[in-house]
């Protein structure tokens, strides 16, 4: 595929300029108003903090591209984290077991979402809303309502660094890179756009719509499982009440990045920008010691403002 086509698939370059501008503007403001924002150690810090939302956002990009939605991200993060922690007590299993179980848990939840959406014909909003409460309940049942502690250092070390780079960031970067290549270069990736853009047309063109959707939800679930494992490593416990409202930050990042909520338009590059924007806002407001009440307001205004600027520019 030519480079030009790739940009068309990702809507277009211009579309992302708005977000890049907002990102640069806010970064510039923070660099000018604080001594600590534009330092290597703080940028590493931001990178570490955005990784979990980043992995989730890339995952849910696939679902949003098909015109669906996944509201169960936060609860599945908690469930996968709890399952991972349950298998991570020191000296019980090899390191791959807790990681694998966490991924498996997320993947299964995602596949179940996908099956209910495609075979059950239930709206994604409802299916994943159900999964949101079921997964939260399962996390509470499996953990007995208490944080699952006593995790092997081998696993919690995964929240640490390799050289100067945080391992969670490396996970996010790898996930984003593979997803970007996949969406642009692979037939199944292009089918995701086709299904979200015009489902009847995709079907007429011989695309197996259920398979494509099942794939999107399954992959999103798998990545949610990964985010759960990373979170458990980061907070050294499996927390049944972790991940509250994570889906909202993830979906916000995707939408800021230019992916349409009605499907068919967008991509991973935009999502990365959206994730960075949200991460930098969170970090910057703490650095500036902005009161908690104002933080919430400012964050909301910036998110809506960024999308508004972006869409306005895309139209002109």
């Amino acid at each position: 595929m030519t480079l030009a086509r790739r940009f068309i698939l990702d809507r277009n370059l211009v579309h992302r300029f708005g977000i890049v501008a907002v990102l640069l503007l806010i970064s510039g403001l923070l660099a000018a108003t604080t001594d600590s924002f534009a330092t290597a150690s703080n940028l590493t810090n931001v990178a570490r903090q955005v990784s979990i939302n980043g992995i989730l956002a890339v995952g849910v990009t696939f679902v949003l591209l098909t015109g669906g939605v996944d509201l169960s991200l936060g609860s599945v993060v908690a469930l996968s984290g709890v399952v991972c922690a349950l298998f991570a007590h020191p000296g019980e299993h090899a390191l791959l077991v807790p990681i694998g179980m966490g991924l498996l848990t997320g993947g299964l939840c995602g596949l179940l979402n996908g099956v209910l959406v495609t075979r059950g014909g239930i709206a994604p909003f409802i299916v994943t809303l159900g999964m949101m409460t079921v997964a939260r309940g399962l996390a509470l049942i499996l953990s007995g309502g208490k944080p699952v502690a006593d995790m092997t250092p081998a696993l919690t070390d995964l929240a640490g660094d390799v050289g100067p780079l945080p391992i969670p960031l490396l996970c996010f970067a790898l996930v984003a890179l593979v997803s970007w290549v996949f969406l642009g270069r692979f037939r199944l990736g292009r089918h995701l756009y086709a299904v979200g853009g015009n489902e009847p047309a995709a079907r007429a063109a011989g695309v197996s719509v259920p398979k494509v959707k099942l794939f999107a939800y399954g992959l999103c679930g798998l990545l949610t499982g990964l985010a759960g494992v990373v979170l458990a490593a980061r907070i050294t416990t499996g927390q049944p009440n972790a991940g509250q409202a994570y889906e909202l930050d993830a979906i916000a990042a995707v939408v800021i990045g230019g992916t349409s909520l009605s499907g068919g338009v967008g991509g991973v590059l935009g999502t990365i920008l959206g994730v960075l924007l949200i991460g930098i806002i969170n970090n910057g407001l703490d650095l500036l010691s902005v009161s908690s009440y104002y933080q919430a307001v400012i964050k909301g205004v910036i998110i809506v403002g960024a999308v508004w600027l972006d869409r306005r520019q895309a139209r002109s």
Partner: protein
Amino acid sequence: MRLTPRIALGTLGLVATVLVTACKKAEPRKPGEWLVGYSSRDQSAEYTARLGDAVQARAKERGVKLVFVDAQADAQKQISQAENFISQKVDVIILNPCEVEASSPAIDRARAAKIPVINVNSLTKAAPDCYVGSDDEQAGILAMEAIAKKLGGQGNVLMIHGIMGQSAQIHRDAGARKVLAKYPGLKLLDAQTASWDRAKALALTENWIQAHKGKFQAIFAHNDEMAMGALLALERAGLKKDVYVIGVDAIAQALDAVKAGRLDATVFQDAVGQGRGAVDAAILMASKQPFEKEVMIPFQVVTRENVDAFLKK
């Protein structure tokens, strides 16, 4: 999905099953047995879950029939639960309130229906008939006094708030600020919320380390979950030895961390004492005996010296 008769029947069947299962609990009462409704703030948070367990255990011990519901941190839900208690004609309602203001209508409705109400653990704007709990202001005072003592009254402090607007957050903050006012050398560098959440406190402390590295000597977290998050951030940055960290609640992990010399201290809140006290007060009220309007269960500071006594509890 089309609504075929089969689907409609299936749905009806499902609803019926759920209803029958739910109603099973409502067996007729034996004479002399009190029916008490308990609405927990949030059974997914460790402290309130422990409190709920303590209430259930005490009710069983004293032969009280308990209707146990979880408001899942939603004040709106808690109000509906109080309304359900009223229509179930319980003898006493025990409320573990979600919020100071928003849970108040639950109290008003119960009082209007002439059913006595006990608040446990947390206050509301509307006055209940009886309050069993601990004075959260005291927790704030104890924690900040411990910090003042450790720093010799000189230094910079950071404070991590619980969910803004909850009684525990408001009063722990007020207590801490009272102590800060007493020590002019003790400065509050910044205070932010991490909503009782470990991951949020971890990120917040990481950001603080960027903004104020080397400039703060103590962190007071309104609960242990957040203290554990702050602790992790400091340990990973290699700064723990320079910063005193104290939380509130004495959850199991925090006690282990105190024992291991990682966390400096926590303030013990007595879930079992509060739960027992609430059920005991409910029985007194139901049987029209005199009761105290306020039962205070004291907080205690837990450090490495006395942690063993609390690990046993």
